């Protein structure tokens, strides 16, 4: 049976791992290569690297970083942040990434999703969505923001997820800006709204603070995978503890002896 995945996320700025709260404050949380190796030892099912500098210089640092991680860590690696063109995607895949996520550029120009999927296959194209819940709307509605939460659009997140699937995205990372970095739990209602609308895997992101949050994203939100940063970086929980807890809740997990 296909297992659900636990994915530690490393936000990378100038080659260091950082962690922000609600997309802003930076706290240095260590060397990404060391962290990646630790997560692998603990049984991470996949690793995500987000380049939060997203400049040309940042991209070169990222390529180097992915190459270094890929020579030590033999699980799927995903890269995101500042990917604007097919060439950006190619560079990341060549450096050892299994998947590449596109965010702002894909929302500005959805054809980019199709072009990348045609060229490299849907399995490596991840559509990343950052959204904020509209405070007034009933039924609930989530609106997409670009550039790391700084630019509001008129795009509805659920419709955008469906269109992304139609254009060839192989997976969706759903990040709730409201919940990001708060450790108060994923927006399960948001997850459910999207997982009920698409048939490709959806990864929950933003807000994990406890093991119950990870479990609820899967059992209540039907997420295929849970992505988390702070709780793993600061060793609140280990990846292994998270997976064992989820397995004990009846979720199929990969619990092979890791070492």
């Amino acid at each position, binding site marked *: 049976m296909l297992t659900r995945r636990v994915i530690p996320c490393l936000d990378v700025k100038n080659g260091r791992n950082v962690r922000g709260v609600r997309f802003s404050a930076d706290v240095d949380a260590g060397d990404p290569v060391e962290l990646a190796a630790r997560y692998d030892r603990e049984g991470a099912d996949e690793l995500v690297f987000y380049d939060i500098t997203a400049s040309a210089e940042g991209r070169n640092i990222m390529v180097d970083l992915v190459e270094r991680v890929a020579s030590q860590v*033999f*699980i799927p690696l995903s890269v995101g942040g500042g990917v604007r063109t097919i060439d950006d995607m190619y560079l990341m895949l060549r450096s*050892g990434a299994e998947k590449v996520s596109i965010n702002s550029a894909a929302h500005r120009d959805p054809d980019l999703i199709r072009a990348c999927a045609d060229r490299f*296959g849907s399995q490596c194209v991840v559509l990343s969505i950052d959204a904020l819940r509209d405070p007034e709307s009933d039924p609930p509605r989530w609106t997409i923001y670009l550039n790391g939460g700084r630019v509001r659009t008129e795009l509805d997140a659920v419709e955008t997820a469906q269109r992304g699937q139609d254009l060839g995205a192989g997976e969706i990372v759903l990040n709730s800006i409201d919940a990001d970095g708060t450790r108060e739990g994923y927006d399960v209602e948001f997850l459910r709204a999207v997982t009920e609308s698409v048939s490709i895997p959806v990864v929950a992101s933003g807000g994990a603070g406890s093991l119950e949050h990870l479990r609820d994203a899967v059992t209540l939100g039907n997420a295929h995978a849970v992505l988390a940063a702070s709780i793993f970086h600061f060793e609140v929980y280990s990846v292994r503890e998270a997976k064992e807890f989820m397995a004990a809740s009846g979720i199929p997990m990969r619990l*092979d002896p890791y*070492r």
Partner: protein
Amino acid sequence: MIAVVDYGAGNIHSVARALKRVGAAFDVTAEPAAVAAADAVILPGVGAAADTMRGLRYARVDDPVVAAIARGVPYLGICMGLQVLFDRSEEDDDTPCLGVLPGDVVRFPEGLEVPHMGWNQVRQVENSPLFAGVPQDANFYFVHSYFARPSDPARVSGTTDYGLEFTSVVRRDHLYATQFHPEKSGLVGLRIYANFIRLAGQTPAPEFD
């Protein structure tokens, strides 16, 4: 020397990194003569059947791969390197493949989420030297939308459950192929490579020996 066949497959660097990690001596080569003369052959692969067959033909390594298998040298096919062994794939409006093993390759039925992407268990249905030291039902990383149906049940070496039970490992003598990606499957995946290089007469790095 182990020849890792370079015909433009996207995962060749990952395969090379994993081989390096387990201490293999290998050549990444697109040279037909080198493939035909190799002591062992690894055929990586990712993507679509028609692209893979086109890549093999364009590099003129299709016949040398078949010849190496016929000579009986150890062969390891990965993902598309498993699928192209069969007669044909229904991908891309029916793609004729290498025809080394009787059988075909078909898409997962409607109703299942495709691609089958993530970690899933491999049930070993025989004692294969490729799986020496790998626990029963260990998890491996899969990414694929099509799966092989060998005509001869004796070729099935491992199976996986994804709504239906499909063949995830095939074997005939020293021909081995996995639908999953051992190079992305953590330590059990590296174990597969270590076992293969031993079959090819090499000694893996101490921690994998």
